[in-house]
């Protein structure tokens, strides 16, 4: 960060001329009034010619550089001091749990002077911010990347998976991954396939309300994830987030059957077509009927092929998009069709061309809830005849991730079998009544 972060042009010139830097106490005289306060950084996206100061009563205001008749430094600013907390006494006998950070913040400290939010991620800091953790686990932490959730790519899934394997080998009994919520369900699906038959719980969690506010859901999600992992009752990849808008219960969702269904609510994540695998309420864990212990050999395969597409069909869909995807040498396409698995018949020619080129084309439904059945209407039967593969009740995003994973780790001729094989509970066997 430069000494005058965010200031440009006119405002930068004014500040430079007066020898002022961020944090300094300054006095500004305008045509109509006078202000004094500490100079703050200017946000990068904002309009250029305003100077922002914090008044002595704590409020920030912006002053139009045009109106400034005089500006002068009164005194230099103080740098905030931070005294890191001490590590609490944690019982050695508690389970060893690794907490990995990928970006976003699980916990943070606020610099009230500038409003900057600094991630707090060492084990000491996490214990100090979420003291409850020390009663459940011996935690160790590692920040493995620092990318916003929407910036995450399949290669990042590979890196996370690698790190998880490393942590398993270090003897951790559970792994928690802090993740931005936007693509969290994609990552949970990716890890579910990449870490097939994972011997310990790997739980991805995050926050819908940022950690710089007292009402953040991050702490409860983190505590509940650690409690779940420390109980040593289940293995596999899961996603843990609030069950409701209340701060009492966290749902442990299957990594392949969970979806972000709301832009902002705490309970945005929901299991589709199945119940959550477990519920953590305070320190009480309830394992649901859906949980099946997996004792098969750990079989990690952590590569992903990016050149795969997810296409959402809609009225007016231009079939040339499919032709373009073929031209891009894509390996395969997941269609998000209507209803039981349909698209407009004018797409059929392009779809056939893709399949003839050796691409895998699978069908999922934009209904999200329910199963593909392409034999009911002629539109579906025609697609079946062309060679489109119905993917039962797999979620479209999960199908996409699975196809990336399949092409990343298997030969072309195996893809269809892999896609139809239920590897990480991406299919349900039965469509349960009353759900």
């Amino acid at each position, binding site marked *: 960060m430069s000494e005058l972060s965010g200031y440009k042009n006119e405002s930068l010139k004014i500040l430079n001329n007066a020898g002022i830097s961020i944090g300094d106490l300054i006095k500004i005289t305008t045509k109509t009034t006078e202000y004094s306060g500490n100079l703050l950084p200017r946000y990068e996206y*904002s309009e250029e010619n305003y100077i922002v100061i914090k*008044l002595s009563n704590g*409020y920030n205001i912006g*002053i139009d550089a045009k109106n400034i008749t005089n500006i002068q430094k009164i005194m230099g600013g103080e740098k905030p*001091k931070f005294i890191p907390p001490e590590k609490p006494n944690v019982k050695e006998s508690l389970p060893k749990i690794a907490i990995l950070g990928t970006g976003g913040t699980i916990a943070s400290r606020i610099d009230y002077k500038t409003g900057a939010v600094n991630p707090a991620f060492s084990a000491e800091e996490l214990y100090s911010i979420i003291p409850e953790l020390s009663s459940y686990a011996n935690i160790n932490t590692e920040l493995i990347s620092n990318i916003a959730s929407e910036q995450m790519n399949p290669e990042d899934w590979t890196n996370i998976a690698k790190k998880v394997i490393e942590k398993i080998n270090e003897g951790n009994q559970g792994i928690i991954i802090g993740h931005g919520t936007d693509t969290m369900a994609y990552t949970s699906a990716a890890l579910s396939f990449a870490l097939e038959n994972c011997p310990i719980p790997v739980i991805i969690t995050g926050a819908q309300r940022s950690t710089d*506010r007292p009402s953040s859901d991050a702490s409860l999600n983190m505590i509940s994830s650690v409690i779940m992992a420390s109980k040593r009752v289940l293995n596999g990849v899961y996603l843990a987030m609030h069950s409701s808008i209340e701060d009492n219960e966290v749902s442990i969702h299957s990594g392949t059957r969970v979806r972000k269904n709301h832009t902002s609510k705490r309970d945005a994540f929901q299991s589709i077509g199945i119940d959550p695998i477990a519920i953590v309420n305070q320190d009480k864990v309830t394992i649901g009927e859906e949980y099946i212990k997996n004792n098969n050999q750990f079989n990690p395969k952590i590569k992903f092929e990016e050149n795969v597409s997810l296409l959402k069909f809609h009225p007016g869909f231009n079939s040339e998009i499919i032709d373009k995807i073929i031209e891009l040498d894509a390996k395969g396409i997941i269609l998000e069709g209507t209803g039981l698995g349909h698209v407009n018949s004018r797409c059929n020619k392009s779809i056939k061309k893709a399949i003839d080129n050796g691409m895998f084309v699978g069908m999922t439904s934009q209904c999200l809830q329910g199963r593909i059945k392409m034999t009911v209407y002629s539109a579906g039967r025609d697609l079946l005849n062309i060679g489109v593969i119905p993917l039962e009740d797999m979620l479209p995003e999960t199908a996409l991730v699975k196809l990336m994973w399949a092409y990343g780790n298997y030969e072309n001729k195996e893809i269809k079998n892999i896609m139809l094989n239920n590897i990480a509970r991406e299919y349900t066997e039965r469509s349960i009544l009353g759900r």
Partner: protein
Amino acid sequence: MDKKNYELKVGLEIHQQLASSTKLFCNCNGFNNNGNEVYFKRILRPTQSELGKTDPAALFESKKSKRMNYIADTNTSCLVEADEEPPHEISQEALDIALTISYLLGAEPVDEIHVMRKLVIDGSNTTGFQRTVIISTGGELHVQDLTIPVLSISLEEDASRIINKNREESTYSLDRLSIPLIEITLAPMKFKKEETEKIALTLGRLMRTTGKVARGIGTIRQDVNISIDGKNIIEVKGVQQLDILTDIIEFENQRQSNLIKIKEELIERGVKEDNFNIRSAEITNIFNNTNSKLIKKVIENNGKVIAIKAPKFRGLIGKEDHKGTRLGRDISSLVKFFGFGGIFHSDELPNYGITEDECKKVTNKLENDDDDGFIILTGNTENMDVAVKSIENRLLQCTIGIPAETRMPTEDGMTNFMRPRPGSARMYPETDIIPVKIYEEKRTAIKKSLPRSYEEQIDNYKNNIGLNDKLSVQIFDSKYKTLFEKLIKKVNVPANYIAAQLTETMINLSRNKIDITKITDIELEKIFKEIESGVIAKESFEKIIEDMCQNNKKIDEIINEMKENKLTDEDIEKIILKIIDMKKEIIKEKGNDSFSILMGEAMKQLRGKVDGKIVSDKIQKLLNN
């Protein structure tokens, strides 16, 4: 004590709800409370600050995670109030009202406004902070000969309404949360205590000239900053009634004077900040066979008794020159903050079952001299250590002077410790909302349409509209001011009548415990329209409102019934002719003087159904025939 150095300075902070059609950061209307109720529970956790040093009480406050129950009405609250959706842009309507009030006070709007978060983790805000934004600075309020500088004018979210509270959890209703409040901070001034009420009233009326501020209980609140040493400011939060302001200021004046006297006496006795002998000891053993019921119970519950030395404080803890101002009471309200019931102190003992012998033992344990005092704290909670530390701290502060605190008013005009005064450090930017510029065009437009002053508006009511003095002031001060001004333009009913119904009749109804808050402006407008058209008789106004509030009748229903039962001219004449026939003897006897008798008889039958004027016209007409 050299009195000249100490001067009472009082600064008012007025918080006034704005009657804008939406809340400050979403499209809910906070005044329309009749949707479905939704309940949810939350926990607030303190956010971690970069700043290290803190007062033990502040640290304690910030360390407590708190459980909250919220009640939300689906009409007045949405996901934004539940902290389930980011805030929308700031309400332009509220911003315009704040700018209008700024210009009325001669304050200068800032070029770009930045919404801030002020940490408040008592649960009154679902987010754990209150959003607040400075709109303007400077300006002056003129109250008779007095000119009071305005420090700043801000817009902020109102807090939730507390329903109940105990040590473990609090329950709040969200209807009020995020209704825009304008906060006007006046500079602390030397002036007579009695003038405070006048200042508050003048400022209140200045805001009311806009016609866009809310009225009623809880819509205006005063915080008072009171200082007598010019350095340490005591903030008294949420004074709702103007009439106890004077008492509170006098109480604080006395309490703070007492603290200064204590400080000077301590200096006299040779106690200073740097030789202050802090000391405390567990004394549970001393009370193993005590007669004090309270201490006995604490020990039975495995609690502890701790004594804190008050070096050279003998006689100062219980000293009270003005009711309630003793130091002992202050320390007691401090420990209540940590969840304790109170304290015992040396100036009041032996008493309450504590014997002279026990006191002596405590004195020995603390190695007290004759002029030393002590405080006894009992309890069995984990907060014991921090409470003891706070008492020690509070005693130490006596050598320095008056500690800056936030205090709350009691009903009888005293104040109690509420929490340490939050510093400016509790404020950081609301990153969900981008700063808003206040462009020249907007400034010009607002300046052009400023409302007329209070005096001009009252003049207008009197001279142009024809209200008497009393009604003019009453309607100006009432929540129906804006409605009244609309009605006199729209409805052909005498202004005096409308004003009287909206003020006197409504006040009367609410004195009779009828909840008139349910009645909306739209409903009132309908009633006056039907009065104009003759469907509703003027005399029935009160009865209709009563019917609506008590029997939950809808206004349309009432109007329809009235229309169906409306008497035609013929019906009315029939009734009057019958009466004339019955009373013909009297008419013969008294002639025209019999009119009042006939009128009384007719109104007995027609009251509330037909306007009195119509009845009298008809009687005149029929009599003359």
